[in-house]
């Protein structure tokens, strides 16, 4: 029993307590469980949105990326900032439509807008396939954090089981409210910890920020900017653009829009959230500080940079606080993913089979599925293996394929049909899978192209295939079908 161990245990208990308290006085119907009956003001929506982006990936992966690859890590600063700018204009119409049509999930939105529950089912499948590896990533991160920060007192496997049980319990009890209230503790802790570490490490080891970057520049010239080849400015720009478009396409992020009390809450968040991105700057500084202090981490081990440096520098009780913050960054997004995946399964797949099911039955099915989803994720976490890594790399590109169909559904004119939208999504997702599984890049696919184009993010190809398929099918259908057979207005009765 040591200080680190106590800190982590306290974090798990705190999450459980807040998750339970969040339920107070609320009847957990489908609307309350999934979207808190659209009652959240700006602070809770902020916490949900911030809760989703500050995951273990940011904590471990962000510092690890800065440590291992340097300058290209800045793309994380940029894409979310740009996504918030778009959100100001794009999200209010989505929120309004969701309120008017009583929608609970991202797939509901597509189903209603395109008047096709099959399109809704397809969208929910894409979402679930992308969400499970994301959940596995949180559990994996949790295992690593507890093992290192607890100095081996609890093994990674035990930690994963405990974490999964805690998240499952409060999600079943409190739904999205549980996630929002645990996010309060998580964001306060993570900001304090990350800002402290990001200032302390450079000052402690180098004397000043400038001295640290000077030392890195001397040891590895050009490491803190973009390389001339590979992850160049071309790679950077195309990657920022793609991830910006995909940002709100994650089902749990999309769903959190629905929790807002009014559209103004969403616009307020578009103003404030960019500033919260600055927390990432401190995450990067930790990674940069580690380069010359804990050298030699390779491959997946770069993600350990933050904790290796912390263990080297601090007393166990401080490591325990850092570990506690880390545990919460895994639990909060993990709980949102659990809730979202279970909702998609119940509301957009199960409901297609049992079409007369009442909302009360659907929410019962969704809550019963939470432990099932958690078990699947725990299985993949403990089994490890190549498949899940491959899926993880594809997840972001998968959800990005929903973007064209979404944007086209927001305009007054009906540009495309449900079949056209589905064709685009299937073609895009298929291309992502093919490209990822064969480890293709634009350079390997088209070696004759000039270097600038070869360095573009390969995800652009999938998006292009998506738009082409969508266009061909839409135009083909409009030409071959009598005008009346193509519905020209979205109909909100489809569910």
């Amino acid at each position: 029993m040591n200080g680190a161990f106590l800190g982590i245990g306290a974090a798990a208990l705190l999450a459980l307590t807040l998750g339970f308290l969040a339920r107070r006085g609320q009847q957990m119907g489908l609307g309350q469980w999934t979207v808190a009956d659209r009652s959240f003001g700006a602070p809770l929506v902020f916490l949900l949105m911030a809760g989703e982006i500050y995951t273990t990936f940011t904590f471990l992966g962000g510092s690890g990326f800065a440590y291992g690859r340097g300058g290209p890590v800045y793309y994380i600063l940029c894409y979310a900032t740009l996504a918030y700018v778009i959100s100001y204009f794009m999200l209010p119409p989505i929120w309004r439509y969701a309120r008017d049509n009583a929608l609970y999930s991202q797939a509901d939105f597509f189903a209603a807008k395109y008047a096709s529950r099959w399109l809704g089912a397809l969208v929910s499948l894409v979402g679930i396939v992308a969400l499970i590896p994301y959940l596995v990533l949180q559990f994996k991160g949790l295992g690593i954090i507890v093992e290192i920060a607890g100095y081996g007192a609890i093994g990674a496997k035990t930690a994963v089981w405990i974490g999964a049980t805690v998240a499952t319990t409060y999600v079943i009890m409190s739904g999205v409210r549980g996630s929002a209230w645990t996010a309060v503790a998580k964001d306060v802790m993570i900001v304090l910890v990350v800002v402290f570490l990001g200032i302390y490490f450079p000052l402690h080891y180098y004397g000043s920020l400038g001295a640290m970057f000077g030392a890195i520049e001397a040891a590895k010239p050009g490491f803190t900017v973009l390389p001339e080849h590979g992850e160049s400015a071309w790679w950077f720009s195309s990657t920022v653009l793609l991830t910006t478009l995909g940002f709100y396409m994650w089902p749990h992020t999309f769903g959190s829009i629905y929790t807002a009390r009014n559209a103004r809450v969403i616009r307020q968040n578009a103003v404030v959230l960019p500033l919260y991105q600055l927390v990432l700057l401190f995450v990067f500084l930790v990674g940069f500080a580690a380069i010359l202090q804990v050298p030699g981490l390779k491959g997946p081990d770069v993600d350990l940079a933050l904790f290796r440096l912390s263990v080297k520098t601090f007393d166990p009780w401080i490591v325990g606080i850092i570990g506690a913050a880390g545990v919460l960054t895994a639990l909060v997004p993990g709980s949102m993913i659990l809730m979202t995946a279970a909702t998609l399964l119940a509301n957009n797949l199960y409901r297609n089979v049992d079409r007369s099911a009442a909302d009360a039955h659907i929410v019962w099915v969704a809550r019963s599925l939470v432990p099932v989803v958690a078990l699947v994720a725990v299985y993949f976490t403990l089994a490890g293996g190549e498949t899940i890594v491959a899926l993880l790399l594809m997840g972001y590109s998968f959800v990005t394929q929903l973007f064209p169909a979404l944007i086209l559904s927001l305009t007054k004119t009906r540009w495309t049909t449900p079949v056209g939208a589905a064709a685009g999504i299937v073609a895009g997702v298929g291309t992502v899978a093919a490209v990822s599984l064969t480890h293709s890049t634009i350079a390997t696919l088209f070696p004759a192209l000039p270097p600038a184009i070869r360095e573009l993010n390969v995800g652009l190809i999938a998006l292009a295939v998506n738009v082409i398929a969508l266009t061909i099918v839409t135009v083909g259908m409009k030409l071959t079908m009598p005008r009346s057979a193509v519905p020209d207005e979205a109909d909100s009765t489809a569910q």
Partner: protein
Amino acid sequence: MRMVRLLALLPFAAMLIGPFFLNRVEPMIFGMPFLLAWFVAWIGLTAAIMALIYRLDPTNRDDLS
């Protein structure tokens, strides 16, 4: 208001086109490599631009919208 909304394009230009011309370590600003400082500055400017757009957007005066 329409014209003010165009300001929202500036962060895109700064972050998507900027790196082609500003990919350099020197001069360091507040101890940060120039490219990093550029992005950090633009995060602040983005929030300022969005605050301005929010302030001037007539829809935000109506509580229900």
